């Protein structure tokens, strides 16, 4: 039963506050992913949980025990670093065994644990090698192995896959997910890759400038983004945002097009529509002037402007393979539940 709680955690470097009071509770065995743009404080937050960074204010609890003042080791966490941080002069075996040796476990126990982890990660034949004799993916697995052998309460990952090529990244992503399921260890995973975030996390936390924008299941964040920031950050290609004005249950976009909206909203709004929620419909009200088209194979991505304005709009057209099939001006209708409205200050309304 390893839960992890952050209670109003803040972090300042000198006078600069970079984390402005973060609260969340992570349940036992849960896989939580923290996403956000570069510099938003993801690593800082993770490193505070790990005990590598002091906590300026607030409280961090692991298993309901305050750990603010504890060394990383005493918190019983394991961390996987972005550049792996393997000890270059030690063999794969020694890399994995190091923490166990420090913990003064018996030789037999150490060997059993390392062999077990190596088998799990398909590293058994590399145990004698030095890290520099391994490929990037294998090094990544050694780093995972080093974390696993300790049987920690919490796994912390800081962008562990960002040094790998795209294909390996997908493979390792699946492996990490499976491993976490099998071992049932509470995990926090930091990334700025939103595909990784969507696929890995049981729950997703979007961090922006040291504030939590939203915390929920990935699909929740996709379907009901709490703010304009989350709406634009989650989903690829990202959501189209169009200025508009809401009154009497109708939203009038800048170019005069009227869409049915919510009757509770009035005043200036920003309307968000995901590219995949616009469907080609000759009777549709949203006319788009074609700009560049990207042919992805399974679908075509059209970047254009909203007719009658110069607002950039992207549309995903599944099943369309060739640009020649497309007219210069196309009409679209918005799928049901496809319209998101945000107030002028970026909150969902």
């Amino acid at each position, binding site marked *: 039963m390893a839960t992890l709680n952050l209670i109003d955690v803040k972090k300042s470097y000198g006078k600069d506050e970079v984390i402005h009071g973060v609260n969340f509770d992570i349940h036992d065995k849960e896989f939580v992913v923290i996403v956000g743009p570069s510099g938003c404080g993801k690593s800082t937050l993770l490193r505070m949980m790990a005990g*590598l960074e002091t906590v300026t204010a607030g409280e961090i609890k692991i298993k309901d025990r305050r750990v603010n003042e504890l060394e990383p080791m005493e918190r019983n966490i394991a961390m996987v*670093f972005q550049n792996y941080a393997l*000890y*270059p*002069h030690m063999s794969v075996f020694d890399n994995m065994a*190091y923490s166990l040796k420090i913990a003064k476990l018996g030789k037999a126990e150490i060997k059993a644990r390392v062999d077990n982890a190596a088998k799990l990660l398909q590293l058994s034949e590399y145990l004698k090698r030095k890290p520099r004799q391994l490929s990037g993916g294998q090094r990544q697995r050694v780093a995972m192995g080093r974390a696993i052998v*300790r049987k920690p309460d919490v796994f912390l990952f800081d962008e562990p896959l960002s040094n790998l090529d795209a294909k390996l990244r997908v493979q390792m992503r699946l492996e990490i997910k499976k491993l976490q399921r099998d071992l049932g260890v509470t995990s926090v995973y930091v990334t700025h890759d939103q595909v990784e975030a969507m696929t890995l996390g049981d729950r997703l936390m979007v961090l922006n400038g040291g504030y939590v924008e939203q915390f929920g299941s990935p699909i929740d964040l996709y379907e009901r983004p709490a703010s304009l920031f989350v709406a634009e950050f989650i989903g690829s290609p990202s959501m189209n945002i169009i200025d508009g004005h809401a009154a009497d249950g109708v939203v009038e976009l800048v170019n005069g097009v009227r869409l049915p909206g919510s009757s509770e909203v009035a005043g200036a709004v920003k309307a968000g529509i995901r590219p995949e929620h616009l469907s080609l419909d000759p009777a549709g009200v949203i006319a788009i002037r074609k700009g560049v088209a990207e042919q992805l194979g399974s679908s075509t991505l059209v970047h254009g402007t909203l007719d009658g304005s110069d607002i950039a709009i992207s549309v995903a057209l599944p099943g369309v393979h060739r640009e020649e099939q497309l007219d210069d001006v196309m009409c679209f209708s918005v799928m049901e539940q496809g319209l998101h409205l945000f107030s002028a200050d970026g909150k969902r309304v």
Partner: protein
Amino acid sequence: MSGMVEKKGKAAWLVHLGLILGILVVCFPIYLAFIASTVSSGDLVRPPMPLLPGEHFIANYKEALFSGVNTPVWNMLLNSTIMALGIAIGKIIISLLSAFAIVYFRFPLRNVFFWLIFLTLMLPVEVRIVPTYEVVANFGMLNSYSGLILPLVASATATFLFRQFYLTVPDELAEAARVDGAGPMRFFVDILLPMSRTNIAALFVILFIYGWNQYLWPLLMTTDPDMNTIVMGIKQMFPSGDDLPNWPVIMATALLAMLPPVLVVVLMQNLFIKGLVDTEK
């Protein structure tokens, strides 16, 4: 490079000839010294100068090693070895530790301390020799190994070198060790030290030779012939009055004095070059 040699056969021969000539020029004085150490005193001063080895090789070296002029050479060699080892090892240990402190610990005035150490670069032994002598004399360390070694043991160069090396070690490594439960000293011993071993080897060679070649300081502070080091000892072998210097024995001593540094370089050559060329990370 080998390709270049193969293609231009004649040019390569010329180049090699030039190089061999160069080596001969450099080696000739050493050869002369060797010849001089194998002949008798009389043969040496009588023209023409001998160019082929004589029969007194064993006798001259025996005399040098076991009786010498003032002190037996084995004794001076021992003193020099102890001093050079002491200086090299002492410098390495001290600078490893001080660089470790400066890079990995945030203590007040950290940078001030670093610059203070750095400043001592500008104060070699020769500059501070009078006060150093005073201090060593007050401690009663004249004519002792500690007196020979300690004043030379602090090393800004080595500290700086290790500092630069530690700075290239990724922070994550220290953090990973911390997560693994290693305290600072454990991290130092288990991780930093093995990682710096090629640097240590390279530095050892340089510092050993530096220590071996110390001249002024041992000359000043050893008055007891039993504490003479070899490099200064050679100079002491020249008679002060009208006596004839015993050249063959002096030459034998000079060659013996060259031997240990050469051995250190040859034996540690591989590690030495590795330490200077690649940083294994």
